[in-house]
C-alpha cells in the first residue's frame, strides 16, 4: 500500500484536504499533560514542604538538598517556566508541522493519505480493498468533539490508513461515504460483475441509494451484565478458589505461615488477571450494535469509545460460545472472522471480531437476525443447546467416546443449504457456522490413534480470525462424506457468487445466507 512518493499530476491537485486543525494539539495533548502534571506535582510538593507540612513523597526523592534540580527550578521560577514552555513548544511545533504536511483525499477509486516531512509517505487504499472503517474517539478527542477514522484494509494493521483527527460530523460523513463506495465495489474481481445490476465495478458509486446513516439500534449490552460476565472467567474463578483455600489455610495454625509466604508469589498472577479483566471491561463497555443495512455498526469502549462498521459480506465465519461459568445465566458470546481484521496486533484483539460480548440466546438471535438472517430458530437452538443425536445432525463416532467422554453425543455437524454448522463441547459449548460461499479450503486429518480407530477429524478453513471450525473423531466414511458434501456446496456457492445476475428461483429456506445477492435488501424482513 505504501508507494514511493510521486508528485501528483497537475490535474489531481484538487480534492486534497487537511485534517482538523485541533489535531496537533490533541496528538501532543498527552505529552503536554504529562509535562504539566510533572511540573505541578513537583511544585505542589515544594509548597507543602515549605509550609512545614512535610513531604508527601518519600524522603530520598523530595529532599535532594541544594543539588536537587527541582529545588533550583523553584528558586528560579522563570527558568522553570521557560523549560516547560520550551518542551511544549517543541512538541507543539513538531505536531503542527506533521499536521501541516498531512493531507488526505477521496479519489474516484481510492482513499489516499500523504504524510511525513522528512520521510514522506503516500498511502493509497483502493475501495475494493477496504475491509472495514472504524471511528475511534479517545477520551481527549471526545472532549474536543473530534474523532479518528481508521480505514482497515486486507494487509493487517500496518496497511491501515489512519486519519487523526477530524471533526465528528466530518468523520461520520467520511465513514459513510467510504463504506458506501467500498460496499459497492464488493466482489469486484476482474471476472465478476457487481451483483446489483450487472454493472462493471468501474461504474460503482454512480446512482447508488444513500445507506441508512445512523443505523437501526439492535441491541445494547448493560454494563452491569458485562461486569458480572467479565468476572465470571476461568482465571478469576481459579484465583478465587486459591484465595478461599488460602483463607482456610491461614485458619489452621500449622499452615498459616506457609500461606503467608505464598501470597507474594500469587500476587503477580492476581495483578495479571485483574489487568486482563479490566481490559476486557474497558474494551466492551457501553456496547451497542446497530444495523446499517449493508453491515453492522459496533460501538463500544468504556473510555475510548470506538465505532466500527463491518460490511456483512466481510463476515467469514461466526461462532457462539458459552463458557461453563456463564451457563447458569444462559449467556453467550458471538465472535466472527472478518476478512482483514486479523493481524491487528495486541490492542485490537477482540475488538473487531466480537459482535456480542455477552447476551442471552434471545439477544444472540437478535444479532444473528442481522448478520445471518437465515439461521433458523430451531437450528440455532439445536446447535446451541442440543446434546444428543438429532435429525439433521450427523454426530461423531460413538466408538471413540473414550476420547470425548463428555461431548461425544453433542459434537456434530449439520450441512445446511447455506452454511455448514458445527457444534461441540459439553463444558464450553460452541456453535460455529461457515457459509458455503466462504469456505477457503477443507482439511481431513487422521492421527495414528485415529487411524487405528478408523476415525478422522475435519477442519473447515475460513479466512483467519478467532473462529476455528473443526470437529474431531468423525467416522472415516462420515468425514469423507463431509468433505464431498461441503466441497459440492462450496462449489455451487462460488458459482452463484460469480454469476452476474441472481437466480430467479427463490433460494431454499435455511441457515445462513451471506451470499452477495443478499446485501442490498437483507433486513427488511427482519422485524
Amino acid at each position: 500500500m505504501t508507494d514511493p512518493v510521486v508528485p501528483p499530476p497537475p490535474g489531481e491537485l484538487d480534492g486534497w484536504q487537511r485534517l482538523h486543525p485541533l489535531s496537533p494539539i490533541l496528538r501532543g495533548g498527552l505529552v503536554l499533560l504529562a509535562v504539566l502534571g510533572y511540573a505541578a506535582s513537583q511544585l505542589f510538593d515544594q509548597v507543602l514542604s515549605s509550609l512545614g507540612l512535610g513531604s508527601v513523597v518519600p524522603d530520598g526523592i523530595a529532599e535532594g538538598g541544594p543539588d536537587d534540580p527541582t529545588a533550583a527550578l523553584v528558586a528560579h521560577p522563570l527558568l522553570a517556566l521557560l523549560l516547560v514552555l520550551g518542551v511544549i513548544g517543541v512538541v507543539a511545533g513538531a505536531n503542527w508541522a506533521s499536521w501541516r504536511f498531512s493531507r488526505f483525499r477521496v479519489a474516484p477509486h481510492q482513499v489516499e493519505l500523504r504524510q511525513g516531512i522528512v520521510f514522506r509517505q503516500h498511502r493509497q487504499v483502493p475501495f475494493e480493498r477496504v475491509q472495514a472503517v472504524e471511528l475511534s474517539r479517545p477520551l481527549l478527542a471526545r472532549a474536543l468533539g473530534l474523532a479518528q477514522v481508521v480505514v482497515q484494509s486486507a494487509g493487517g494493521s500496518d496497511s491501515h490508513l489512519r486519519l487523526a483527527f477530524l471533526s465528528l460530523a466530518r468523520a461520520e460523513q467520511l465513514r459513510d461515504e467510504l463504506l458506501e463506495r467500498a460496499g459497492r465495489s464488493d466482489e469486484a474481481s476482474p471476472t465478476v460483475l457487481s451483483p446489483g445490476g450487472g454493472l462493471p465495478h468501474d461504474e460503482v458509486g454512480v446512482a447508488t441509494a444513500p445507506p441508512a446513516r445512523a443505523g437501526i439500534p439492535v441491541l445494547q449490552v448493560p454494563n452491569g451484565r458485562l461486569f458480572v460476565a467479565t468476572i465470571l472467567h476461568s482465571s478469576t474463578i481459579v484465583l478465587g478458589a486459591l484465595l478461599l483455600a488460602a483463607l482456610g489455610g491461614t485458619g489452621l495454625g500449622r499452615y498459616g505461615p506457609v500461606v503467608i509466604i505464598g501470597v507474594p508469589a500469587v500476587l503477580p498472577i492476581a495483578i495479571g488477571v485483574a489487568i486482563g479483566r479490566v481490559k476486557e471491561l474497558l474494551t466492551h463497555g457501553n456496547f451497542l450494535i446497530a444495523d446499517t443495512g449493508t453491515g453492522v455498526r459496533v460501538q463500544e469502549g468504556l473510555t475510548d469509545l470506538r465505532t466500527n462498521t463491518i460490511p456483512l459480506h466481510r463476515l467469514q465465519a461466526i461462532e457462539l460460545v458459552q463458557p461453563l461459568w456463564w451457563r447458569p445465566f444462559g449467556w453467550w458470546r458471538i465472535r466472527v472472522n472478518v476478512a482483514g481484521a486479523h493481524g491487528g496486533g495486541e490492542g485490537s484483539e477482540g475488538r473487531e471480531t466480537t459482535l456480542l460480548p455477552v447476551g442471552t440466546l434471545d439477544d444472540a438471535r437478535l444479532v444473528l437476525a442481522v448478520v445471518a438472517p437465515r439461521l433458523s430458530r430451531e437450528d440455532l437452538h439445536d446447535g446451541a443447546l442440543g446434546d444428543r443425536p438429532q435429525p439433521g445432525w450427523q454426530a461423531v463416532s460413538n466408538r471413540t467416546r473414550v476420547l470425548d467422554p463428555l461431548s461425544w453425543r453433542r459434537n456434530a455437524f449439520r450441512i445446511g443449504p447455506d452454511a455448514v454448522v458445527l457444534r461441540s463441547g459439553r463444558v464450553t459449548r460452541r456453535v460455529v457456522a461457515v457459509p458455503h460461499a466462504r469456505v477457503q479450503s477443507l482439511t481431513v486429518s487422521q492421527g495414528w490413534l485415529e487411524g487405528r480407530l478408523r476415525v478422522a477429524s475435519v477442519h473447515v478453513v475460513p479466512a483467519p480470525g478467532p473462529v476455528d471450525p473443526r470437529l474431531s473423531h468423525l467416522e472415516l466414511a462420515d468425514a469423507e462424506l463431509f468433505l464431498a458434501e461441503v466441497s459440492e456446496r462450496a462449489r455451487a456457492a462460488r458459482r452463484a457468487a460469480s454469476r452476474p445476475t441472481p437466480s430467479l428461483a427463490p433460494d431454499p429456506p435455511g441457515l445462513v445466507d451471506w451470499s452477495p445477492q443478499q446485501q442490498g435488501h437483507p433486513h427488511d424482513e427482519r422485524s
Partner: protein
Amino acid sequence: MADPSTVTLHGGDLPWRPVSPRLARVRLVTLALLVVPLLVAAGVVGLLVTRWALLGLVVVAVAGAWAAWVVVRQVSAISWVELEEEIVIRRGRLFRTLVSVPYGRLQYVDIQSGPLMRSQGIATCEIHTASPESGGSLPGLPVEEAEALRTRLSARGEAQRAGL
C-alpha cells in the same frame, strides 16, 4: 475428469499422482548430513576414548536407518490430484492429512527450490489462500511440472475466482 465425490483419505479410484522419488533422495541426503557426522564422532570417540561410545554408534545407526525408512515411506505417501474445481493433496501414512483447495480461492502460488533440490531438478509448489493455515504445499515436483502446475492453477484461479 474424475468424479470429485470420491475423494478419500486412503486409496481411492482417483488418478492420484505421486511426487518424484528424487524427493526421497534429497531428504535422505539431508538426513545423512545430520547422521554421518554423529556416526563419525561416535566412532572416533569409541576408538580413542571409551568403548562405550560404540554403543552410541549403534544407536545412532539404528535411528538413522529408521529415519531413512520413514523418509522413504513419507515421500511415497504424498499424492495429489487436480479435480475440476479443486486441487487435493494427501500426505502422511501414520499421520494422514488431506487438503482440498478450490482453485477459486487461490491467492498466489510459489515455487521454491533449494540448491539440493535444484541439483535433482525438483521444486516445491506452495499454494496460498487467504488463510495462512489452509494452503497446501506440494514438495518434490519436477521443475517443469511445477511450473506447468503453477500456470494451470493461476489460469483456473483466474477463471473461477470468487471474492473473499
